[in-house]
Every structure is written in C-alpha cells, then in structure tokens.
C-alpha cells in the first residue's frame, strides 16, 4: 500500500511551488548554429566583390526584362490552359466505360509522360525537318482547307506551347483522374437518379467535387510550369531566362542578370502561392467549418512574432 501522507495535495507547500518551463538547450544551440550558417552564407554572397548588386536594381524593371516577364507569364498561362483542357479530357476518357477510349488515353499518358519536356521542345521546333508543310484538308479527298509552311507555324512560342502543354497534360490528367476517382460512387448514382445525362453528371456533380482534390496540386503544377518555361529559351523564345541570356551575352554581367530574373521568378511563385490559397478556400465550400477570417490566416504568420511575446 502507498502511504497517503507523502502524496502532493492542493494544500500547504505544493500550492506555492513555482512551475519552471522546459528549457530545450539542444534546440537553442542547433537553431543558433543554423542562423549563423545562414547569415554567413548570405554575407559571402552579398560581400562578394564580383557581384554588382546595383545591376539587379537597374535591370529589374528594364523594358527587355519586363517583356521577358510578360512572355514567361503568357507562355505559362497558355501552356497550362492547354494542359488542363487536355488533361481533363484525357482523364474523362480514362475513367469511361469504353475500352478504346481507355486504351488510347492510357497510351497518350504513357508517351507524353515518358518523353522529357526539353527533348519534346526541340522536336517540335525542328518539325520542319520532316514535315515541310502543314496541310489541313479532308483525308481521302483532294479538298484542302489551308496549307502553311511548318516553320511559319511552329514559332518558338507555338513550339514551346505544344511541347510544354502536351507534356504537362499527361501529368495533369493523372491528377484529374485521381480527383475523379476520389468522388464517392453514390454521387454519380444520385445524379443519374435525378435524370442528369452523363455530361451533366460530370459537369454539375462529379467534376466540382473532384476539383477540391485537383486544385491544390494544380497550384504546384502552375508554379512548376512557370519555371519549366525557362526551357523555352533554348529554342530562342525570349522569356525571362532567354532575356537574361541575351543581355548577359553582350554585357557579361552573367550572375547579376540571372539573379535579376531570379527575383521575378520568386515574386511570381509567391503571388501564385497566395492565389492558390484563395482558390482552395473557394472549392472547400461545404466541407468542414468555414473560416470566418480568411484574410487573417494569410496575414497571421506575419504577426506571429508579436503575439508570441505575450
């Protein structure tokens, strides 16, 4: 038996005992070391006499760089649009009952997921080597609606759009398919029972619910695409990266210009990340509790330091 006389109680001495918080010394030491290393690293870059930081300020809003930024954003948006439209279509075929649709979409995903985007970029750009002209007509007849020189059609922009859009569509269709499979089968039945046709069922019931699972990875894919567009510079597209290359090839301020476009890439991905948060909120409707102060969640981390000192 345990004696009760020694057990701590609310009376007497125990009520006055001071509570001492845990002191994680090891964490403090490691954290200090990490800060020191980071500061040291930043200092070596900032104090490097070979980098002229005033160049960044000078070129950040230079007309060529802004043009490059615009081209990067346009290509990102256009390629993602191609990827998303094709991706949804491929995913819809992939989940259909028709075996031919399923097989063809599977082959499409297999091919376009296997070929590196850079390689596809170069293939599209050099398509004129094998197809001199592109002809639009009705097969089996001599009726020709239009004919163009391949090189006129496949400009660096169009070649980049096709290569990056198609490559991404294969990955994107897998994201969409995952979302579609995540929707409860009872939803499809309820929609059918109400008399919706297959297209209405998809558009009104299945797809909006799948979106909730599709949107978060889409944000990542857009950010990825923003950076992938820099590949287009190798076929002469003047995106941010291509612009930087053009400028430093004449003035030899290589690192400075690369850092300049770095700043733009960071700005763009940050804005996209913030946008993703709001879109996710929009498609999270009807699930769990709604946040009464949505903006606060975004801004709160900035104020965390103050609230912690309390």
């Amino acid at each position, binding site marked *: 038996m345990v004696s009760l006389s020694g057990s701590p109680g609310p009376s007497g001495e125990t009520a006055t005992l001071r509570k001492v918080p845990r002191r994680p010394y090891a964490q403090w030491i490691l954290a200090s070391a990490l800060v020191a290393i980071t500061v040291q690293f930043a200092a070596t870059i900032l104090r490097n006499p070979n980098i002229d930081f005033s160049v960044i300020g000078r070129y950040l809003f230079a007309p060529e760089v802004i043009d490059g930024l615009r081209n990067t954003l346009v290509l990102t948006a256009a390629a993602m649009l191609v990827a998303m439209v094709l991706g949804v279509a491929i995913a819809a075929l992939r989940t259909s009952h028709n075996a031919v649709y399923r097989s063809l979409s599977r082959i499409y995903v297999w091919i376009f997921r296997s070929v590196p985007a850079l390689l596809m970029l170069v293939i599209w750009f050099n398509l004129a080597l094998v197809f001199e002209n592109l002809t639009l007509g009705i097969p089996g007849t001599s009726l020709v609606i239009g004919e163009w020189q391949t090189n006129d059609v496949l400009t660096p922009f169009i070649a980049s759009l096709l290569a990056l859009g198609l490559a991404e569509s294969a990955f994107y269709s897998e994201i969409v398919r995952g979302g579609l499979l995540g929707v*409860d089968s*009872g*939803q499809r*039945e*309820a*929609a*059918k*029972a*109400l*008399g*919706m*046709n*297959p297209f*209405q069922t998809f558009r*009104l*019931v299945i797809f*909006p*619910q799948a979106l*909730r699972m599709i949107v978060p990875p889409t944000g990542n894919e857009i950010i990825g695409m923003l950076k992938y567009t820099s590949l287009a510079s190798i076929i002469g597209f003047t995106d941010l990266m291509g612009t930087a290359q053009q400028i430093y090839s004449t003035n030899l301020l290589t690192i400075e210009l690369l850092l300049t476009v770095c700043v733009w890439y960071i700005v763009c991905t940050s804005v996209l990340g913030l946008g993703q948060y709001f879109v996710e909120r929009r*498609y999270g*409707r*009807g*699930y*769990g509790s709604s946040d009464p102060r949505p903006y606060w969640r975004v801004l709160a981390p900035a104020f965390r330091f103050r609230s912690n000192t309390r």
Partner: protein
Amino acid sequence: MSAPLFQPEAIVHVEKVRKRFGHLEVLKGVDLSVKKSEVVCLIGPSGSGKSTLLRCINNLERPDSGTLMVAGHYVGFERRSGDSLRECSARVAARQRSQIGMVFQRFNLFPHMTAVQNVEVALRHVRRLSKAEALDIAMSQLSRVGLASKASTYPSHLSGGQQQRVAIARALAMDPMVVLFDEPTSALDPELVKEVLDVMRDLALTGMTMIVVTHEMAFARDVGDRVLFMDGGVILEEGTAEEVLDRPRNSRTRAFLAHVQ
C-alpha cells in the same frame, strides 16, 4: 404466385426480372406490379435482392432478362416500329429516370451544394426551369419536409435525419410518378429515424406511389398497403401488412420476422 401479365393501371410493372453479378444470381425472376398511390414495402434479409430490384426499376442496374415498365415506358428501352425494343440512348434513359424518384440509404446529397441547391439543380438542368421557378419549387419542397430554414446550409452541417429529408425533397421536386426508398433510415442514428419516417408517412397520405425497402416493421405495418418478403432473389410472400407480418405462411418469412421483431 404470379402477377397478371398486363395491368394497365400499374405504374410499376416488373416481369420475370433476373440479374446476376458474376456467379451470384441476385434476382431469380421477380414479378411485381405497383398501382398508383400504392405503398409497397419490401422486407427481407440482406442480400435477398431488395436493393437490386429497386436499382433495376430505376435503371441504375440493367437486368439480364425480364421486362420493367414504369409509367408506360419500357425502362432503358424504346419501342420502335414493329416488335423490337431498342436500348435507348443515355439521354433518353436520363429522361426516364427523371420521372422516378430515388432516396438512398446514405442520402447521397451533393456536398458542394447547399440544401436548396441540391433540390434545385435537377429542376434547373434536367427540367430546364428558370432560376425563379426552380427556387420556388425547391423552397416549397424544403418547407414540406420542414427544412425551409436550412435552405442555405451545406449537407455537412445537417444531421443525418435532416440530410435524408433534403434528399426526399430533392426527389419530390422532380414530381416523380413513383419514389423508390432504398433503406432510407438504415444509416441513421436511432433518434433520427422518426423524423424521416414521419415525412414518408405524410408523403404516403398525399397519394404518392412508393416502393420502400425497409427494416422498419412498424412503418411497413402502418403505412404499407402491401408488404413483400424477398429472400434468395425471389418474392416469397406478399399480402397486406397483417397477412405477411402477423400471419406469415412461409417458414422463411417466419424465421426472418422472428429475428427482427
């Protein structure tokens, strides 16, 4: 025990329907005729084919053989010139289904829509009513099930009983010829069962034709015009609630009732 071959007044007419899933024959030749305003309760052990029969009537499952007619239409088929029945397009099948209401065990409300949007959506897109008309009907159906105040609530914020009542309103909004209930209270907490059964009881009083798969024997007794006992893919016994529930003739009916009552 066989239903007459032709019953013009029948809203639902099922004849020799068979359905097999792989090696398992779930329906082994079912005959059933349901007249207008009749409430038919289907009882029986799980796996007896009750739900599959309902799903066949609604064309959610296609029977392997046999004939189903709802409101004078062959379910899933179109009568063409001559004696042929041609399997109908998805669009026609959808139109047929829109005349048959269905209430599911797990409610299957659309979680991304509010209660009123759940009721409205088919009115807008299947019946192609204007926004105002659809809203009008949706609100009156929600009032009917006592949930007008929850119109702009998402299903995740409703109790199971409330969700099922919205699901009933959603089915009724389409002005169906018949409503099929697939164990509508089986997924509910015991204290929520009554509110759903009350709505169904009121609905029966308005003269709605209903086929109800249920384990609620009290409901079958009070509301059912006819009770059918299904087991092993066939209807073993049918009659009034008193006949089937109080004086069952078949030994399997007696064994089943002894278990559930």
